[in-house]
């Protein structure tokens, strides 16, 4: 619980601020994740583009193998996102997994965190399966080609982004600390209040 604060009293008892409960959530984590998935889906890279990218310039046998891997990836995405979600959400999850694992050979802490942040708790076997699957998908492709492909798709979305505000601000993390006049042991104050005659 938050300790009693002056500004808490001012928020409650004066009429100079908007009355709101800071702990009240307009959006919970589930809603936030869904919104995040929606935003991710709008960032330019789609499942269709990945399917096309993985199949183009390959002979039939390799195309067949890639197709199988893509199916496996979709299945793993389904397990991660939850079977109750529609095809669109599952394909979006598959895109995310492809992007997350395209340059990884195992599921590390960062990848686990990123998947959980996007979809919530998930079966680790599905993450392992998608990591292995993506590794096999990108193996026949030239080094750097996958990254270039993702970068190209993403840059279409990011054209609007400016440089971050405040990057040159010299910010200090210093916090106010207790600055007592004296320690308890060092106090030589009289125990009783001093009555003074005038």
């Amino acid at each position, binding site marked *: 619980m938050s300790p009693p604060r002056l500004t808490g009293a*001012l928020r409650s008892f004066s009429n100079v601020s908007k009355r709101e409960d800071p702990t009240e959530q307009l959006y919970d984590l589930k809603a936030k994740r869904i919104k995040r998935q929606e935003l991710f889906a709008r960032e330019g890279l789609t499942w269709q583009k990945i399917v096309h990218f993985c199949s183009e310039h390959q002979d039939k046998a390799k195309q067949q193998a890639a197709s199988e891997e893509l199916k496996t990836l979709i299945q793993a995405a389904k397990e991660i996102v939850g079977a109750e979600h529609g095809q669109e959400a599952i394909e979006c999850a598959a895109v995310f997994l492809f992007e997350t694992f395209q340059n990884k050979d195992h599921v590390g802490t960062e990848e686990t965190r990123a998947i959980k942040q996007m979809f919530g708790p998930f079966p680790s076997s599905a993450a392992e399966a998608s990591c292995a699957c993506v590794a096999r998908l990108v193996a026949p492709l030239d080094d750097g080609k996958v990254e270039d492909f993702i970068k190209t798709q993403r840059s279409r979305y990011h054209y609007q982004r400016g440089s971050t505000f405040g990057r040159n601000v010299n910010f200090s993390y210093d916090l106010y600390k207790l600055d007592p006049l004296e320690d308890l042991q060092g106090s030589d104050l009289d125990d009783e209040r*001093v009555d003074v005659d005038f």
Partner: protein
Amino acid sequence: MACARVPLDEQQVTESGSSGKERTLPALHPDRKEERCFVPYKPPPEDGSPAEVEEFLEHARFIAEDLEWLLALPHDKFWCQVVFDESLLRCLDSYLQLAPRGLDLGTLPLSPAVADVQRTIHKAVFLTFLRMATHKESKEHFITPAVFGEIIYNNFVFDIPKILDLCVLFGKGNSQLLHKMIENIFTQQPAYYSDLEETVPTVLQVFDTILKKCGLQCEGATAMEPMKLNEQKQPTAMSMKLEELADLVLYLCDSTSTIHAFLDIFPAACSSFHSHGFLSRLPSFYEAAVPDLEKAIRKRSFDDKSLQEDLWKRMSHSCRKMVETTHLLLHHTCLQPILEGRENMQTFAEELLQYFTSFLPEKRFLVDYDDEFPISDDISLLQQALPVIDETRTLYLLQGVESAWDATGRRRPQTEGASS
């Protein structure tokens, strides 16, 4: 992107709507806001259980990511978000209210992951407020000052409690930037001065509440009412529950630290506090409350000695902040005008002497004040600036200070040094 060299509030933009059809609309328009869904901030868990830490990290990473995104937005999109995204202002406000402060009770040390994301959010929140306090970001990106004033006031982007929170959370190492921010906010929207005037009585009420909780008399009508014979006796600092005593001390510590941080960073606010009689109320509060609370902390039995030690430190810290606040107020409302040679110097000098004289009955306060800011130094400054000052009066004052030292049984530090 909106067009250049025209204030944002007058810009129009053409963009394709949801139907794909192009349309022109004001640059500041709710349809241009992104549905980002900012989540409110939650402080790091106190007991540090893995599940709670994980939940904190998840929340915190969303906030860090969203604020990073926000700060990278172009000027027009940033302001659309600020004005029309309710979840953003709620997220920022939740941080101001719930973020741990340097003065909070010591908790378990944060794990590296928690500390890391906490630092990221701390900086991002400050930069967001900095950007929101800036009406002119560059030659091309600006808002008409009067419109900026209306936007931040009408949408509660800033309000007095938020400004106080900003000072106490970020003021230690960013006082210059904060000063510029707050100065700009008050300059572009003078209604904040009226809000401040409205807030000071509530601040004074906080001190009265502390006195009342300690069973001590406070100024005002209710204090003068006779107590009914069958009325239950008000608990005192010695008899109240230990948790209540701890809460009172924490409250006092937070209140005095917050007021001091604010006035130190934005001295222009001193006149509002001064006009509500803060310079007489604070010393009398000090005189009434401090000895009782100190005695309770020292004499009561604490199972947890570290709590006793901590409460003592907070009490002592509060005393320092009350003394420093009094000095700040005296300096900015009376001494500064004299030293700057403003008109009516005599009136300011008279007021200063009047305040010092009013402190004479508040012996404990007077001694603590004189210990930190020797009154003889200020008198000496006064005599240099105004040689016509009444010597009998200053002598009386200095003798009063000496007798307060004698009456409290304390000795000046330098006297102790000389006698040893």
